């Protein structure tokens, strides 16, 4: 055991916790991390490295650790967590991870959620600087959010310091009492601000239950993402100690000096008894003295010739041997470090501590493009002056994050004052010592060495961003917290340029890894995306419908029935039956998802004349007109029918997918180009349920349904509509057909929709009324050559390409897209045009998306000239064969020709036809 008495401010020695690591059982204390508990048990070797299989251990004391990754097995499987950040709980099971983790194979039943917070000041980091910043702002009456990623506030404070004449941890406790008493302060520990975005937007992850282990209440979310919008952000995130790269610097038992000091004071763990400290900075003297005082034999080697007087005095008091101008150039050992190589000498040790200075944790400044400037006194990059008005607006770095390393300076900056200069022996900037570059590890997690940087430079890399990507340094879970600046420094040395001119790699969110589950929050499974259902959805479910997604809508695709031979129909069989029923008798479709826009105002007709390619202002009330809409480029964007309700009111039907974008399109033109038009637009998609009743017997059904209405062809002609009442329910009937058959669309408000639908189905029973789905609707419309915008078109298709020049007004002086129709490219006879294709084999259904080429027995060598592609392809009950629609170059002129469609390895000959294959004379329309 390496636990020593009299130390350990964070652990509760009265509570013993059992845990399992790599199959062996150990004990630790409440307040331990997995790393501190392992080291307390003398376990240094955590894993082996990802590529080279070298033994690896704990390097740092918190999230900057580049080395000691574990896979947690219990309580819930989770891959790739640093042992240094796992709070020990009873029953924890983990194992060392050589590089790559394994995702859980069982569903994660924990909850994750999200909270929005707005504040005047967000303070990130509850160390001395952050606490002062939060207290100062709170006393000013500002709304403050204070977040900190450790289990408890205090930051780098170890408990030995004194603040304002009092023990540091008492000062922390008092400050928290004051903050917690203030209703305008939110204080969150175990909360990592992982991303900083524009305008004071910060994402922070709160770990709420993991530290409670098996006692975690089920009703509390495991993790919460806080979305914080702050007028000002104070970055008080401290500094990370930087190692010095030496040969074989990756052995277990080699760590950062501050980490060993942390482990002693926080967890009462003395990680070695025979310690060598190698430093080029002052802070390691305090670590050496503290470790010696706790009972270790310590030798301190300072690469500098001068020593800090106070530090040297403390070391002398504790019996630390200090040697100046001494440099470690390698290590010995296999599973654990046994010696430090110093010149020709090998110093025995069971712990080698490295300290090359401190890197300000300026990630949250860098995330929002704040500049980082090299400070030669630190040997590190610190927040610089904002380069322009976008970066660093309202963002302040204080304390160690700003490069101010002394406690008094941190407190002053936290309080918004200027830190007083302190006397320090300057840090000697020493990225590495002499040695074999293939065994000088820069990024331990990536097994990347000085030799890899040399290779990158040799290959011509001159930017640290390129070196990073070439060597993968800084791309692991720790994102180069300890290795990034060293990689820049070594690259600069190899290139023979100053590091200032190279800069450092840009930090990007997230600061530490964030689980996808936390980002997803409650938006999982059924809540991932809203599902829209029509008011008849339960009826469709009861009828056994198979649904398809159309945008967010769930629409019945077909209604399979039991087969006589047993089992249930597949889609092909169901659709053939539904198609035959519609064309032979009568069918009913739930068309409620069609977009509906109520267009009102004295200028409604003039407005629609600009929106549609044909004339809508001339439509008489009571009449219906089909219309096409184009973009400015003349390409079709939507189509549908328009009902004129009265002189100042129209109801516009859009495609299901077009409901929202077409409303937006109309609003844009109305507001930005034609604000003088007195028109108002309202979506009424969800207010109306619409049911097409289709087929030669539809007149019988509608006649029975609305006995007061004369449904004869003379009284109720095609493309007309009327409002009536059926049993007191207001109902709108319109003679519109999307199949070529005699048909009515029955529209009713949602409250009465189910009653009306069931009445229609009951009345149609004697005529064999058949509910049909979107698949049958598609076949019926394709047989008539009616295109589906977005399936048979792709944003490059004009009305003329679709054979719908008849829907384009020649009389109107202007409408959206008109001028584009006469552009030379739109007059090109070789434009792709919509045609029908009949495979010579009437049983062969072409795959949608298949390419169309010239008739051939053998494909020419690639590139094969493409004529177009299949846009729709079905099996037709009416034709007794398969057919397709396709966009084909110069297609209208090719009607009657034969072409080839390569399908898999086969060359399928097809005949080009007009796009209208069923009832081209239109004889079925009026029944």
């Amino acid at each position, binding site marked *: 055991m390496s636990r020593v008495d009299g130390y350990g401010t964070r652990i509760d020695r009265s509570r013993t916790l059992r845990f399992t690591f790599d199959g062996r059982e150990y004990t630790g204390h409440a307040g331990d991390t997995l790393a501190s508990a392992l080291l307390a048990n003398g376990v240094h070797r955590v894993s082996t490295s990802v590529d080279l299989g070298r033994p690896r251990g704990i390097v740092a004391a918190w999230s900057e650790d580049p080395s000691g990754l574990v896979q947690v097995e219990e309580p819930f499987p989770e891959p790739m967590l640093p042992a240094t950040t796992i709070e020990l709980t009873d029953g924890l099971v983990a194992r060392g991870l050589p590089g790559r983790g394994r995702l859980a194979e069982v569903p994660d039943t924990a909850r994750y959620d999200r909270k929005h917070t707005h504040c005047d000041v967000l303070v990130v980091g509850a160390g001395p600087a952050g606490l002062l910043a939060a207290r100062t702002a709170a006393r000013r009456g500002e709304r403050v959010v204070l977040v900190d990623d450790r289990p408890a506030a205090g930051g780098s404070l170890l408990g030995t310091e004194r603040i304002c004449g009092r023990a540091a941890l008492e000062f922390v406790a008092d400050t928290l009492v004051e903050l917690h008493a203030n209703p305008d302060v939110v204080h969150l520990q175990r909360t990592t601000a992982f991303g900083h975005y524009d*305008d004071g937007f910060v994402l922070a992850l709160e770990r709420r239950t993991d530290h409670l282990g098996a006692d975690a209440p089920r009703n509390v979310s495991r993790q919460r993402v806080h979305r914080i*919008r702050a007028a000002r952000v104070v970055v008080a995130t401290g500094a990370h100690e930087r190692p010095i790269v030496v040969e074989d610097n990756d052995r277990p038992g080699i760590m950062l000096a501050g980490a060993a000091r942390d482990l002693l004071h926080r967890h009462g763990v003395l990680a070695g008894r025979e310690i060598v400290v190698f430093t080029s900075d002052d802070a390691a003297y305090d670590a050496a003295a503290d470790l010696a005082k706790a009972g270790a034999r310590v030798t301190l080697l300072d690469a500098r010739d001068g020593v800090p007087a106070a530090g040297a005095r403390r070391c002398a008091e504790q019996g630390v041997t200090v040697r100046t101008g001494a440099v470690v150039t390698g290590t010995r050992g296999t599973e654990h470090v046994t010696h430090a190589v110093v010149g020709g000498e090998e110093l025995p040790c069971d712990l080698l501590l490295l300290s090359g200075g401190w890197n300000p944790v300026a990630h949250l400044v860098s995330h929002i493009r704040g500049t980082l400037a090299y400070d030669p006194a630190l040997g590190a990059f610190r927040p610089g002056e904002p380069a322009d008005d976008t970066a660093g607006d309202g963002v302040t770095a204080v304390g160690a994050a700003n490069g101010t390393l002394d406690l008094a300076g941190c407190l002053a900056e936290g309080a918004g004052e200027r830190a007083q200069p302190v006397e320090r022996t300057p840090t000697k900037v020493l990225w590495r010592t002499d040695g074999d570059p293939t065994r000088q590890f820069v990024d331990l997690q990536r097994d990347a060495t000085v030799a890899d940087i040399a290779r990158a430079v040799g290959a011509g890399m001159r930017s640290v961003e390129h070196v990073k990507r070439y060597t993968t340094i800084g791309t692991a879970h720790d994102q180069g917290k300890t290795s990034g600046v060293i990689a820049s420094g070594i690259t600069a040395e190899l290139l023979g340029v100053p590091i200032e001119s190279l800069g450092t790699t840009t930090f990007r969110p997230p600061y530490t890894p964030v689980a996808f589950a936390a980002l997803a929050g409650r938006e999982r499974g059924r809540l991932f995306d809203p599902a829209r259902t029509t008011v008849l959805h339960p009826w469709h479910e009861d009828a056994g419908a198979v649904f398809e997604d159309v945008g967010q809508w769930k629409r019945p695709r077909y209604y399979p029935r039991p087969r006589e031979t047993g089992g249930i129909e597949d889609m092909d069989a169901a659709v053939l039956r539904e198609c035959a029923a519609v064309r032979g008798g009568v069918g009913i479709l739930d068309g409620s998802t069609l977009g509906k826009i109520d267009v009102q105002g004295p200028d409604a007709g003039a407005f629609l004349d600009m929106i549609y390619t044909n004339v809508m202002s001339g439509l008489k009330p009571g009449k219906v007109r089909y219309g096409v809409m184009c973009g*400015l480029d003349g390409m079709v964007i939507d189509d549908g029918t328009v009902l004129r309700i009265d002189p100042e009111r129209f109801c516009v039907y859009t495609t299901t997918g077009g409901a929202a974008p077409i409303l937006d399109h109309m*609003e*844009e033109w109305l*507001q*930005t180009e034609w604000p003088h038009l007195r028109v108002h637009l309202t979506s009424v998609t969800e207010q109306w349920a619409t049911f097409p009743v289709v087929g030669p017997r539809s007149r019988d059904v509608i006649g029975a349904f609305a006995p007061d209405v004369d449904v004869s062809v003379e009284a109720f002609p095609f493309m007309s509509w009327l409002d009536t009442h059926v049993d007191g329910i207001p109902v709108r009937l319109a003679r519109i057909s999307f199949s070529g058959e005699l048909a009515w669309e029955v529209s009713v408000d949602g409250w009465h929709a189910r009653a009306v639908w069931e009445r229609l189905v009951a009345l149609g029973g004697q005529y064999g009324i058949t509910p049909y789905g979107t698949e049958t609707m598609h076949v019926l419309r394709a047989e008539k050559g009616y295109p589906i915008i977005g399936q048979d078109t792709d944003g490059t298709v004009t009305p003329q390409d679709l054979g719908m020049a008849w829907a384009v007004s020649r009389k109107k002086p202007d409408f959206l897209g008109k001028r584009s129709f*006469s*552009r030379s490219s739109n007059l090109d006879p070789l434009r792709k045009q919509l045609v029908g294709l009949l495979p010579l084999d009437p049983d062969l259904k072409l795959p949608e998306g298949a390419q169309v080429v010239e008739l051939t027995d053998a494909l020419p060598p690639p590139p094969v000239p493409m004529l177009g592609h299949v846009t729709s392809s079905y099996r037709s009950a009416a034709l007794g064969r398969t057919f397709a629609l396709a966009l084909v170059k110069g297609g209208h002129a090719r009607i009657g020709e034969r072409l080839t469609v390569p399908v898999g390895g086969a060359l399928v000959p097809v005949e080009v036809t007009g796009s209208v294959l069923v009832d081209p004379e239109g004889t079925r329309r009026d029944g």
Partner: protein
Amino acid sequence: MQLIDCPWCGPREEVEFHYGGEAGVAYPADPAALSDEEWARFVFHRANPKGPLAERWSHSAGCRRWFTAVRDTATHRFRR
């Protein structure tokens, strides 16, 4: 996530907005009078400058109103 100032609703998150490209490109008074090239210039060509640009924005997930705002295309910052 930037904040964008809707003249009707105040500052809201950028995901509530829809971008409408360069502002001030008026629909031609008589499209039929334009040559193909002039018409193509209106439909397809925009200046795309680096720096301040007057743009059309729609508060599409809010009040649904279109408005014009000046934004620096290099820094994304809106002129206040």
